[in-house]
């Protein structure tokens, strides 16, 4: 179950990253409109919240929030890796 929470954290941060104008050209290859960006942002935060719910349910009693903080950290790091990989790929093209 902690794997599922971690996956949601990665997905949530990737959604947030894709919602940022600054990163859209390198991460998605194109710019999104304001509406789509906002939808991605909301979905990203919602997904991070869903990860918290799973952690609260799955982790040992009282430790859900601790797991969530750790999962957030890993999710953000993996998102940066993904963004870097995309940047390099688009720089080659």
């Amino acid at each position, binding site marked *: 179950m*902690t794997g599922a929470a971690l996956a949601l954290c990665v997905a949530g941060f990737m959604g947030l990253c894709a919602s*940022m104008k600054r990163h859209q050209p390198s991460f998605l290859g194109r710019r999104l409109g304001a509406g789509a960006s906002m939808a991605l942002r909301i979905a990203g935060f919602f997904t991070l919240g869903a990860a918290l719910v799973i952690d609260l349910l799955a982790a*040992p009693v009282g430790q859900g929030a*601790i*797991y969530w*903080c750790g*999962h957030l950290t890993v999710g*953000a790091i993996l998102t940066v890796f993904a963004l870097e990989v995309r940047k390099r790929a688009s720089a080659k093209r």
Partner: protein
Amino acid sequence: MKTLRRAMAEFHTWTGLLLGWLMFAMFTTGTSAYFLHEITRWMEPEVVDVASSPSDAANRAVAYLERNAPQAASWFITLPDERRVRTEVRWRSGERGVPQEVRVLDGGGEEVGARETKGGYFLYRFHFDLHFIPALWARFLVGIAAMFMLVSLISGVLTHRAIFTRFFSLSWGKGVTSWFDAHNMTAVFALPFFLMITYTGLVTLAYLYMPFGGMANFTDGGYFALAYPRPPTTEAAGEAASMAEIGAMVSDAQAIWGGVPPETLDIRHPGDRNAVVHARRSRAGSIGTRMPTLSFSGVTGEPVGEVVRPYHGPLQAESVLVGLHAGRFASVGLRWLYFLSGVLGMAMIGTGLVQWTARRRRRLASDGRRHVGFWIVERLNVVTIAGLGAGLGGYFLANRLLPLELPKRAEWEVHSLFIVWAAVGVWALVRPARRAWPETLALASAIYAAVPVANAFTTDRGLASSLASGDGVFVAFDVMMLLLGGAYGVAALVSSRSARSKVSIRARGQRPAAELPSAAEAS
């Protein structure tokens, strides 16, 4: 708002810098402490993992003590658990000034001729007691550093508008911007951890820093008697009696505590009619750290009393905050998350320190003078970031390379850490900084890479054989050493490349010739 932000930026710069090097050392050694027992296991390769239940281990430990220390006034047993594979027995003759005897037993209760080492415990103690200075001074110094850390974190958050706009941003090879992005990223990604670890770290020593409430409300020792109650002391009857089976007491305690076994057994007056066994509950599995102690009559084996930590709100809160800091409750997976957050903390402090020099290098260089402050910061950065890294590698390497029969071997392992660290320090002082970085980072890389090699040659538990036998702790340790070696190696390459590119700019005459002492020597 603008002035507040500017004031906070200034504040952040100086609170972060002033004790940043100490914070880096505390973060590094403290992070290693999440794997304290695993590091000790690697540093005691003679101790092999023989599974045994807590009650079996207790029985074997008592059998060993009856054979080897029948006259002792007290025995102290630390039982093995999932992370510790050894039983540790200590005894005391009862006379003042005679140090405790310590022996390590394996799961079968046999004494292991384990090499003398302080293991992971030294690194854990270093992160708040430091070394070479009295522990009390160290704890005050560490407390001041932690307080600086806390205000740096808060002022950093208030300062950086860029936290959200530059989220996920990394830039490579852009000087100050690159360092800023890396500092920003590492700081934000584990910010809840940093706030928690710094605050709870202060809480662990809160009474030392703020004793006034306790002093005002309690007379001598009353505070400690209330906060840390101990089982009553008993006198020996002076009459020999045979002891009840200790394993049964361990099982009883385990049943009373809902399956959680004792971690330590403190046996007073063994072999006497008044023998008492104090069993302290293991801290595994609950966040709080203050655990009850169950006392048994050593002769009848019946429980005679339990000392429970009082359920005062503040004491419970303290117990949980300390538990959050130490992470002893954490499963292996969560332990790695703690470790990763600690590594990010090291990166945050390291990138912050380097950023200080990166921001000033160009500005200060243009006026052609030598700046003492800049010089000191630049050198201390090398000494701390590359030097401590190399020193820790030296500590592990010394564990494998020092002769087993060397007198005071454990002390010499510790000395090795500081000898390597000091050597890097001297190197950083005599070399131009741009050269010192790649050279010392390469040294650290080589030391870490040598650790698994030394392990394979001096023990039969090298990486190949521990992979074959599925020994997770040894595999993880050796792989971690290789990863650290690789990381320091990459850092050495990157820093040597950037040093070279800066030299070439200067060679083309785009910088004033008298910029820094390194300029003339490097070109």
